């Protein structure tokens, strides 16, 4: 196994993290929708972001053109459904994850960010009312007592980048803690977990960290925390009683990828396997529209081919090689479920020899929740983002 430096250092406290979270934000103004004014999370945020001018806007479209930029924060309530299915990808296996969109957008600035292709509204939007989503998840959990409900807030933004300011994740954790079959996952590239450590009943909450090779993090992940900082945050979360999860996504096949990813995987050995809920893998992929919006980074000009869902991926043979390597390295470090995100049945068969629902340790991850589908007349179809 590749050696790694010990993960040590003084744990930051929640107040220091709040200061750090505030200090790095790009905002120069806040827009607040009238219906969000009285929400506790909105009031908390306004207290914690003093000095920023606060304007009123009934909707995102109500924000003046000149303020539709990454320097604007828009606080509102969610409209329509509050819990969605992961959009999945046509012709690829989806783990049937449920999503809540509380933070829409992110200011970390990763060069490969796929959100650039579908979040065309620049201001970072916060849905500051978690109540309806919590109730919806509780309903789905009640309808599926025999199934594990996996739901996360990291689909459209970083779950914790703004969380020290808004405290929304705490409301989900507390609201779902009594449900044994719910895994609420907060996924982040930051270290902002400390405000959540003292919650007494954490239920099935999972603190998940996107990981990458150190070289990729340094070159491509903007203002995200270093890999070691993220792992130290994961350690603090585990010590406090949370389950951890790790997501290697996107895996980028840069020239020394084996060494780079091997090094990061080696660092996972310090986590007790029974405190890691899952690890996912996904190689870099992009919809064609994203390519023109991305910085011209060398990895973007590797060999990619269009797949059945229209997204571009590495050649199938190469993906198989990457996943096989990663899975083997992880298996040698931690005995936890490792699954593939948005991959084809052919890749699953090549890497695992079988399909996920036929594998015992994948069953909980890939089982579809009953009654979590949209209403029949919603027009939703597989592979399309739906709200519930």
């Amino acid at each position, binding site marked *: 196994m590749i050696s790694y430096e010990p993960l040590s250092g003084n744990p930051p406290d929640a107040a220091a993290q709040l200061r750090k979270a505030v200090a790095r934000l790009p905002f120069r103004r806040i827009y607040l929708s009238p219906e969000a004014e009285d929400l506790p999370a909105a009031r908390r945020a306004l207290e914690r972001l003093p000095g920023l001018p606060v304007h009123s806007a009934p909707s995102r479209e109500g924000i003046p053109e000149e303020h539709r930029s990454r320097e604007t924060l828009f606080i509102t309530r969610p409209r329509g459904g509050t819990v969605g299915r992961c959009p999945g990808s046509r012709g690829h296996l989806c783990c049937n994850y449920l999503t809540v969109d509380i933070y829409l957008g992110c200011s970390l600035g990763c060069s490969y960010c796929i959100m650039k292709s579908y979040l065309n509204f620049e201001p970072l939007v916060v849905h500051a009312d978690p109540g309806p989503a919590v109730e919806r998840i509780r309903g789905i959990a009640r309808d599926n007592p025999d199934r594990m409900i996996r739901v996360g807030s990291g689909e459209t933004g970083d779950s914790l980048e703004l969380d020290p300011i808004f405290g929304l994740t705490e409301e989900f954790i507390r609201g779902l803690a009594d449900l044994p079959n719910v895994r609420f996952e907060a996924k982040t590239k930051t270290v902002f977990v400390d405000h959540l450590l003292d919650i007494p009943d954490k239920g099935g909450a999972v603190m998940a960290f996107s990981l990458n090779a150190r070289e990729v993090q340094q070159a491509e992940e903007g203002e995200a925390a270093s890999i070691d900082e993220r792992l130290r945050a994961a350690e603090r979360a585990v010590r406090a009683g949370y389950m951890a999860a790790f997501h290697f996504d996107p895996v980028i096949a840069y020239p020394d990828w084996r060494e780079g990813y091997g090094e990061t995987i080696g660092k996972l050995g310090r986590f007790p396997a029974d405190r890691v809920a899952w690890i996912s893998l996904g190689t870099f992929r992009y919809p064609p529209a994203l390519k023109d919006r991305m910085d*011209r980074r060398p990895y*973007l*000009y590797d*060999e990619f*081919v269009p797949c*059945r869902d229209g997204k571009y991926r590495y*050649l*199938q043979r190469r993906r198989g090689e990457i996943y096989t390597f990663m899975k083997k390295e992880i298996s040698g470090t931690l005995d936890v479920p490792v699954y593939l995100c948005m991959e084809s049945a*052919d890749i699953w068969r090549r890497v695992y020899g079988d399909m996920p629902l036929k594998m015992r340790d994948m069953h909980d991850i890939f089982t579809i929740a009953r009654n979590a589908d949209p209403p029949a007349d919603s027009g939703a179809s597989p592979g399309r983002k739906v709200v519930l």
Partner: protein
Amino acid sequence: MMSLSPDELLRLPRPFFFPESPEGVDPELVRRGLCPPLPLVVSPTQGGRERRLLVWGGALAAAARGLGTPALQVREWEEADLPPREALLLCLRLENRRDRYSPRETETLAAVMEEMGIPESDPQVGDLVSSRGALRPAFRRLRLGPAPRELASEEMIDIRTAENLGEVPEEVLRRLRPALEGMSFSDRRIFLNSLVEILLRDGPGNSERLAAELAAAADPVAAVRELRFPQLSLMEERFRDLSRRFFSGSGVVLKHPPHFEGRRFSISFDFDGPQVLGKKIGVLERFLREGGELYDLV
């Protein structure tokens, strides 16, 4: 109204860009004196002397000189009465060539506008030049390096492809110019975009060697694709080789999944009787026994 000789007119500075060749001027109109008065702008200089600019009519003056016409009528304005933007509008009105400016002329006009501080979105200027918004691409071409601008101005490539060429050294483009001339518009676009992507992937260090290799290739488009997609090209080559070895001349056609994504290959053939069918089956049996390497491709 006053008159000046063609020689006097041609000695005046001309702020705008129109061609000086008299070819576009009808000599009969000049001979009969049916020319509009040429606009001049008069402005005082620091030394107290007056400076005259010929706003429009250089080509007419040149034609008049060629025909021996002694003088042409002129109309003078103080600069305050005909400021630079108004002078340009007047010039474009007199030129009266909407939609008939060449890409190079619109680029020159764009450069003049930039120097004068007239925005590219100026609706009146734009309307006098083109009904199809030709000024905007001219401004975009103006911002290109010399070699990409040349390719775009000659309409060998679209403006977007030209703008992508920022990573390609000028020398490389010049070296590849003969190869580019032999390609279709579409192939040229594919070729150049692939070249850019190779340089972005590998860095500019080997760009001259790359240019030499591509310039010497019998089929530069195929050569650039092989360099852009080396693994895929190798897989395609292995597949072709395998198909040739097992199926050449047999009428059996083997196909691989698109981009080798998936595991479904297909085989097709026609037959018109048991004898032909038997032959095909024989070919397939040999492939079944010896063709296992096919599956390594996916």
